[in-house]
């Protein structure tokens, strides 16, 4: 892992319109992503966690600039800067579909559902070769086919499987095919959206290990989007936590997992069941209620409606990420104050 940046997201906003009425007027926006900034270095794995509806998948899709295909009326703001190995950074969000094409081979994607993400009518060879057909037309058919077989071997599938069809494979094997397809064009970044959550427990570890091996061998960076925190901890260098379209905390995996500062992260981590009965009954912060809808977000800090340390001021401003260490940023101004007040009490006692 190097420290040279690969991708930098600056103040990303993604609003999906909501239409209603006879005239189908735009009446509101789903604020799926509401001001998100982070960076990924070359070879780094950034874990992106949060509960359903927090916008983590939308962030992943924004990075490869496909949102306009998903929803033509989507409102996008902010920048997604891609740093090529040489030359000036490019804002991917400002590119048209045609301009985007050369960058698509640099950023690939792996999807959650290994059943629906492979075209059932194409053979494994065609599926894995498709990115090469599109992006490497200068390669001869024979070269491309050879590369397909090489890729299948890399992901632990026998090259003979190339002529088979997706339905002949189990979930874990299909996910390997998806990974081979993502690797085809030698990407620098792979966006992995819940890549193991649909797999059986005994197969998850195979895919996680494979992803780690490929990272080591090819120096690929991952944006690892998932809700299973122990898996995210295992594979990530850094972890970002999202809530209702905002990053509330970001830091190294140990900072976020073992010393979470934001009240939401603390609740999230405390809710993770521990796979050791001796540690049973750890103190849980049980959050009241459900996540508010992103159409009608609470004013100010969007977590304040469920926050155990919320105060009146929280309704009036949107908290910014503030540094707690060189790598650890938290979007809550009051977590530090609590810390300070404890210190003051101790001083008082000492005096």
């Amino acid at each position, binding site marked *: 892992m190097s420290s040279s940046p690969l991708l930098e997201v600056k103040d990303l906003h993604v609003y999906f319109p909501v239409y209603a009425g006879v005239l189908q007027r735009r009446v509101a926006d789903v604020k799926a992503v509401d001001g998100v900034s982070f960076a990924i270095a070359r070879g780094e794995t950034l874990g992106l966690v949060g509960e359903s509806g927090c916008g983590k998948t939308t962030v992943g899709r924004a990075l490869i600039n496909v949102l306009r295909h998903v929803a033509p009326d989507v409102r996008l703001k902010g920048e997604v800067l891609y740093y090529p190995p040489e030359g000036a950074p490019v804002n991917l969000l400002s590119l048209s579909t045609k301009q985007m094409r050369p960058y698509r081979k640099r950023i690939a994607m792996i999807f959650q559902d290994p059943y629906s993400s492979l075209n059932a009518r194409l053979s494994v060879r065609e599926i894995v070769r498709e990115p090469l057909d599109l992006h490497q037309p200068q390669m001869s058919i024979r070269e491309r086919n050879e590369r397909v077989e090489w890729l299948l071997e890399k992901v632990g599938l026998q090259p003979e499987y190339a002529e088979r069809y997706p339905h002949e494979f189990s979930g874990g094997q299909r996910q390997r095919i998806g990974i081979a397809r993502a690797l085809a064009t030698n990407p620098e970044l792979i966006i992995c959206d819940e890549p193991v959550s649909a797999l059986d427990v*005994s*197969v*998850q570890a195979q895919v*996680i290990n494979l992803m780690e091996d490929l990272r080591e061998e090819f120096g690929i960076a991952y944006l690892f989007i998932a809700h299973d925190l122990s898996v995210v901890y*295992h594979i990530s260098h850094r972890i970002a936590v999202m809530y209702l379209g905002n990053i509330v905390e970001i830091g190294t995996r140990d900072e976020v997992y073992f010393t979470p500062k934001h009240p939401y992260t603390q609740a999230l981590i*405390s809710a993770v*069941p521990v*796979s050791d*009965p001796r540690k049973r009954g750890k103190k849980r912060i*049980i959050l009241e209620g459900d996540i508010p809808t992103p159409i009608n977000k609470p004013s100010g800090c969007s977590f304040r409606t469920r926050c155990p340390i919320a105060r009146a001021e929280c309704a009036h401003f949107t908290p910014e990420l503030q540094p707690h260490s060189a790598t650890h940023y938290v979007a809550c101004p009051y977590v530090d104050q609590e810390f300070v007040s404890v210190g003051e009490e101790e001083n008082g006692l000492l005096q």
Partner: protein
Amino acid sequence: MTNGNTTQQPLLEVRDLRTYFNIEGSWAKAVDGVSFEVYPGEVLGIVGESGSGKSVTALSIMKLIPDPPGRIVGGQILYKGTDLVRLDYTDMYRIRGKEIAMIFQEPMTSLNPVFTIGMQIAEVLQAHEGISPEDARYRAADLLTRVGIPDAEKRLDDYPHQFSGGMRQRVMIAIALACNPSILIADEPTTALDVTIQAQILELMLELKQQRGDAAIILITHNLAVVAEMCHRVIVMYGGKIQEIADVFELFGNPLHPYTKGLLASIPRPEIPEYRGKRLVAIPGNVPSIMNLPKGCKFCTRCSVAIERCFTVEPPLVEITPNHFVRCHLVETTLSTPRILDGQPLQETMSL
């Protein structure tokens, strides 16, 4: 906590249960000779991956196996002395929902979208307790409050789509608990939910269990961490058979079956310093289809320590240390008179 205290009378006894499915003319042995007991007051976990037979075991107890294609072809399910397998539809109707209740994985699809929540809870009460609609509605509101839904009186008239996933699972729990059943079967109750909501629901289940000390929960899941948090005893299933039964502390501290060991080594466990950041040890291969199980030990094709005998002879489920049962040729019992938890093998000639 009973911790498998065998001196107690079991609430439910499953003996040599066999549930097969007819798939294109051949029989898939989804559950093939499963025997276990459920004791009053315990939370019994059943863990396994897809196709292990854990859900089919639960549906067999409830007699909710769709026939055709499925059928309970052998064994007994003794609930307070009655064999549920032999009960006809009307007799089972009196047990289901009243004595044994079940909650399912999908809170999205297990409620009827065209009836209000209030009607769906009241239905159970009216069917089993024959009380008036007014009383049923009153009780339904009380149940909703108990499962932590605010404004229960008002929300009785809401429809399922007006509830979030976690709320729907609470409603399912309210329906399941309406008649105060002695056994609650929870089949992956939190799998579809977010982790903070999962914590709420698990907490709620334990809380409600504490209110009735002699009731038991059978918790079916693929999530070992949920088992570690919730259960007293654990059954590990693979390929339609029980592979290991042990007290939860024993199972996590001293797993003996290669499959159980493999499962525990293949999940990230950041809370345990020795495992933190270490490469996971994956179980090779894929979960076999139940149409295509090996002849001997069901796990032999993926087992790293399998010997020749494993491929031809299925090992029995033997008591290794008191109340710890393992189905493996390579694990030797320490007891002089170990119990063996297998019934007689089904005669091949038996007509299906």
